[in-house]
């Protein structure tokens, strides 16, 4: 079924909302009233409901199937979280109500902070970053502020491993740092010697993901963090893979100075087709004074929302309008309270178990990139496809026809034709087995030489492969009315 755009439906007279007739008072617009139509289409409520229902039916989602997406932690999104976030006492709160009327909301933010600090062992948390990359920026800006406070103007280099998420260098650049790469070793970890050699007095910070993007725990992490601190630099941890170790490893114990936490990964809030997320950033004692506004403070009388500099705080500024992704906070808190610290520990264990099980089932047929146990994701490269005429992309697209979302492809960059698979703890053994069965069958098929099967995939989807080059070369980014009926603007 083809579903036209809303602009190709309806008529401007129709309306899906009934509104009362406005009073006819003299306006106070001062002559800047809009003239001419806007060009919006009009649809009745039944048409709108059907349109968006049909659109939704063209999507894959965690509710409908398994997402083995490495580095994305697509876990089950409990509906309790949704219900809690919709309580009128949370959803219908204005950000600037008097503090006395929002004590429950401030307490919820306070409880969330307590959880995040308890799980990481850190000193402070900035709740406001809007998502992971924003949390990174928060952490790196805090580092920059700390460097500035101590007058370390010469420190402008940030070390980033070659396997890092692309956001890491982008974030470092935004803070005025130059990025220098650190090579990995053949065990998929940072090369300790090269790392130490790179640490000089121009280094401001190191940004490291742990478990790293190869799905491995950086076993030398304590040596690395000690070296960083001895060199006078700060240690930023990318928290994208926190789900592997939550409830088992405290970030503070790794020597981290800052780490962002994706509430929409580790703490089960929905990805929503690309947001909203939330990326609170935990900070060590060295960075805590520089945490951005606002802060939540509990005192005897209740909770306060600190929106301006007080006392000896040195916040580097403000990350976001209002007080952060409050609706996401409530969902994450609901999840943490549900799981408890024991449940979170069990979750990270099951996530790692599922990944190692995938590794065990696939390692004979596919080509694992590294030896040893993995953390919560299993990394393979494309050596097993050599000579088959099937690329990692083709292989992934063929997974779609088997009813699975593709794994993460071509990331991390340090591995050729990477396939990164993250089965989270909310997939059952049956589900993981079905996935492995499908991968193995496809691998056999590829090795048997049926390349056309792969290059033509997917076939059973609302659309087959789309022409991305055409889209980028001549971008059509909005609907335009057909030429004769050009809407007046």
């Amino acid at each position, binding site marked *: 079924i083809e579903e036209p755009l809303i602009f190709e439906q309806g008529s401007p007279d129709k309306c899906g909302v009934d509104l009362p007739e406005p009073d006819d008072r003299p306006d106070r617009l*001062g002559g800047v009233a809009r003239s001419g139509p806007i060009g919006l289409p*009009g649809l009745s409520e039944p048409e709108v409901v059907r349109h*968006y229902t049909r659109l939704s039916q063209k999507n*894959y989602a965690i509710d409908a199937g398994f*997402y083995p997406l490495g580095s994305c932690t697509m876990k089950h*999104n409990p509906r309790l979280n949704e219900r809690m976030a919709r309580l009128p006492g949370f959803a219908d709160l204005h950000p*600037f109500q008097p503090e006395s009327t929002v004590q429950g909301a401030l307490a919820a933010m306070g409880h969330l902070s307590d959880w995040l600090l308890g799980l990481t062992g850190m000193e402070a948390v900035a709740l406001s970053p809007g998502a992971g990359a924003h949390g990174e920026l928060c952490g790196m800006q805090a580092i920059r502020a700390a460097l500035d406070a101590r007058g370390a103007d010469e420190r402008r280099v940030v070390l980033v491993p070659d396997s890092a998420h692309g956001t890491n260098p982008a974030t470092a650049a935004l803070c005025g740092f130059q990025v220098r790469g650190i090579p990995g070793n053949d065990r998929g970890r940072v090369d300790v010697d090269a790392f130490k050699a790179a640490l000089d007095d121009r280094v401001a910070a190191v940004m490291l993901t742990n478990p790293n993007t190869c799905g491995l725990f950086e076993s030398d992490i304590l040596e690395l963090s000690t070296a960083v601190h001895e060199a006078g630099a700060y240690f930023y941890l990318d928290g994208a893979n926190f789900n592997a170790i939550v409830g088992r490893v405290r970030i503070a114990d790794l020597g981290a100075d800052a780490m962002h936490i994706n509430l929409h990964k580790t703490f089960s809030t929905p990805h929503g087709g690309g*947001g909203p997320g939330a990326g609170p950033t935990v900070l060590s004692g060295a960075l805590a004074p520089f945490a951005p506004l606002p802060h939540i403070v509990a005192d005897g009388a209740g909770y306060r929302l600190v929106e301006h500099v007080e006392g000896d705080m040195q916040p580097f*500024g403000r990350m976001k309008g209002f007080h952060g992704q409050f609706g996401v906070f409530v969902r994450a808190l609901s999840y943490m309270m549900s799981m408890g610290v024991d449940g979170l520990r069990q979750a990270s264990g099951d996530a790692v178990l599922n990944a190692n099980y995938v590794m065990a089932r696939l390692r004979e047929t596919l080509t694992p990139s590294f030896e040893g146990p993995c953390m919560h994701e299993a990394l393979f490269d494309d050596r097993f496809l050599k000579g088959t005429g099937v690329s990692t992309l083709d292989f992934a697209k063929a997974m779609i026809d088997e009813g699975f979302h593709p794994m993460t492809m071509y990331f991390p960059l340090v591995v050729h034709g990477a396939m990164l698979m993250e089965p989270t703890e909310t997939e059952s053994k049956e589900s993981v087995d079905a996935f492995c069965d499908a991968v193995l069958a496809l691998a056999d098929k590829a090795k048997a030489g049926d390349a056309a099967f792969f290059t033509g995939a997917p076939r059973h989807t609302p659309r087959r492969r789309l022409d991305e080059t055409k889209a980028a070369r001549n971008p059509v980014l909005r609907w335009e009315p057909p030429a004769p009926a050009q809407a007046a603007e």
Partner: protein
Amino acid sequence: MRYLPLTDDDRRAMLARIGAASVDDLFRDVPPAAWTGPDGFDGLPPHATEMAVERQLSALAARNVAAGSVPSFLGAGAYRHHIPAAVDHLIQRGEFLTAYTPYQPEVSQGTLQYLFEFQTQVALITGMEVANASMYDAATGVAEAAAMACRITRRKHVLLSGGVHPHYRAVTESFLRYTDIETECLAPDPLGVEDLMGRVTAQTACVVVQNPDFYGNLADLSALAAECHAEGALLVVAVAEPVSLGLVTPPGAMGADIVVGEGHAIGSPLNFGGPGVGLFATRKKYVRHMPGRLAGETVDEEGRRGWVLTLSTREQHIRREKATSNICTNSGLIALAWTIHMTLLGEAGFTRLARLNHMKAVEMVEALERVPGLKVVPRHFFNEVMVRLPGQNAAGVVDALAERGVLAGVPLSRFYPTYPELADGLLLCATETTDTADIEALVSALTEVLR
């Protein structure tokens, strides 16, 4: 544990297949000094039943005063509108709610098509040529717009009007703080008298203004736009209340180069301020400098129309430190709510809603003008105005009204505590949810307190 499907039997079988003795054994790469046992997290509680969590969180929620439960006149960047029930129903469909970013277009056409619809709607109401698929919120959007203007003009000076929302100003300053861009933030300007035109120079990358401004003043920005363009600078216009665009000449028609809006007020409840959705629109010629995701039209192998994320060469996972922005996650679901609500409204509903808001505000202002000891500041406004309460501390008045069960607005001291001349200022807003009885309650409580 209800969210965990593995049984102990499963775990045993899987460990056997892996060849590991225990789950802990899989963590053997973790140095012992960094390992915390099950009892090592003091103070964090164990798992709880759904019923228990519901009780505890409901108790917290009950400690708040829901804005809709009392007469409420708060705005200052967050506007309370009525949301049709269909919106929340549709965004909760699992295929929207629990989908990932649409990187695999073959199984993400639903998300991609609504983003394309969103982009078109945003472009239409702002009067611009193109829009992206959303930013975190307007505050971060303004910051990104300023950076974008610097990329386009290759200049390094950003001029921020005193009429821009203080949070947008603060976020922009913070965002650019460690870059080589200089941000000039003018003093708060409740009367709309600052001389922006006189400050635009050949070094100015952009001027950032808001319309209606933070204090409610509505203005024609055409002359400012012309001045900016004459100097080779861009005009960035922020819109805090998107409903205003149903009645007011859009920034695009006034000559804006980049328009940033906060979309939160359409489709989403207040949520104590977040998550929001940043609307971001510009001219077609600047599209390759624009931050954020973009859905674009194309065709599939069989020639059928379809959508993909496009121009991703601007993005950080490809460009890394040379990316236009470090932003990765956006506000997909809030953008969806916005699009559904906008689609329900349509041309007729959106323009009527805007008119209704303005008329409610006119009714409120007419009533306020009869309150002794109160002065309405803006001559021209949309649905919000700053008032002065000469000789009074506005924050104290708000607290006094809260005790009388009226959420009376936002005192300016909340944003500018160090400006004593703003201490008597208060922002008051009316929307379609405001009824005459609410206005009467406000006026009589204000009259009483100001007496």
